[in-house]
């Protein structure tokens, strides 16, 4: 009973710290995911060009991303980026995370574009639409709809992976928990508190994805 009381007390006392950190976590993740979509689209298109060099570049990118731990990528990119240009830690972390997520999105986007029936491209062509116009107006909207569940999955993974930003000094959710836990000599309680925040955000975004999926499937 005492420890439950202690948990809630900690939860309430640390409320404003964690709320601020939660917005930072969501901010990093949302920004990173936006950029990741751009990376993913770009490298998926390279792969779809069927030009060997470009396909190789795309494969190489995905190989590096999938083949090395995120923490290594964050450190390398963070120190690399901030070495070349001065930028706030927020953006260095966001770009590093985006680069990482983009690797996974590349494969998801490529797969969903390929899954669209070839007849759609032909229908576009037969109406005089260029390949690029057909891609933009016909193929991509359908591919994105089809990819929504995978995007949602990847977003949630990214949300939790953003906790690694604490290792380069970002005071996002995990960073705050880490700091508060060590200053108050009470790690376990703060870890449990932060877990509740993560569970809450993931729940909200899961609902959001489910809503999007339902809304988009009306036309299928």
């Amino acid at each position, binding site marked *: 009973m005492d420890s439950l009381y202690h948990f809630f007390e900690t939860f309430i006392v640390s409320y404003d710290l964690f709320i601020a950190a939660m917005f930072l976590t969501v901010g990093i993740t949302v920004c990173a995911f936006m950029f990741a979509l751009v990376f993913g689209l770009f490298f998926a298109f390279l792969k779809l060009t069927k030009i060997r060099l470009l396909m190789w570049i795309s494969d190489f990118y995905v190989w590096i991303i999938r083949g090395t731990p995120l923490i290594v990528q964050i450190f390398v990119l963070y120190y690399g980026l901030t070495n070349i240009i001065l930028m706030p830690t927020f953006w260095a972390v966001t770009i590093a995370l985006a680069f990482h997520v983009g690797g996974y999105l590349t494969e998801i986007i490529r797969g969903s574009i390929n899954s669209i029936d070839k007849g759609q491209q032909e*229908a576009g*062509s*037969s109406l*005089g639409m260029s390949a690029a116009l057909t891609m933009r107006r016909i193929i991509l909207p*359908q591919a994105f709809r089809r990819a929504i569940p995978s995007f949602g999955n990847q977003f949630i993974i990214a949300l939790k992976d953003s906790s690694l930003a604490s290792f380069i000094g970002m005071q996002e959710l995990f960073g705050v928990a880490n700091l508060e836990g060590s200053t108050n000599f009470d790690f376990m309680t703060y870890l449990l508190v932060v877990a509740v925040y993560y569970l809450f955000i993931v729940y909200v975004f899961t609902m959001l994805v489910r809503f999007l999926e339902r809304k988009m499937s009306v*036309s299928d």
Partner: protein
Amino acid sequence: MDDKTEIIRVEKLNKYFGDLHVLKDIDMTVMKSEVVVLIGASGSGKSTILRCLNFLEKNDSGTIVLDGEIIDPKTHNLNRVRERVGMVFQHFNLFPHKTVLGNVIEAPIKVKKIPKDQAVRDGIELIKKVGLSDKINVYPSKLSGGQKQRVAIARALAMKPDVMLFDEPTSALDPELVGEVLATMKQLAEEGMTMVVVTHEMGFAREVGNKILYLHDGKIIERGNPKELFENPQEERTREFLSKVL
């Protein structure tokens, strides 16, 4: 035919899929307002001819002349060419994320750059014409096969093509839905649309076709008006085919 303008002329068309010689020295002409029907067994090359006519497949040799202009896939902008050649597919290929109207107005707005309100007006008119005015804002998934195919016809017509190609437009339909699509095509033919039709519907070929081409193994074996070809086929292979399908 009163009108003697030539819309399509094909000369010595050859097409290979790898080592497979699928079209052998195809010669054919399509005059304005004519309905040319290609018949023949599966795999005889009917659909491939059609797909060559709007360059979804590139011919390996031979010439394709459209409205008096030789089309060279290497130098012509094929998208401009395809604007003039409408195509209706066996599996409809409607855009599932767009409504019936959205399907019809997409290309006029994005390719022909027609103002949206005009495209919508023309689109509604076309949808009415194929008998679907109550489905204007419906998504394709809510339509029957026959309705889908009629939307596909309206979509192709929206580009105001000089000629319409029909690639087995009723083959994927339940038997009771075939009639409505054929009726729409017949109506088009009566309005003077130039059409090239690949079909297994011999009734339609006989009634609506002006010229029948019988294909066998990538070659046009026999050609003629429906009366000649159906009632008095000259070639043994044509007779054999017709005895199976009639």
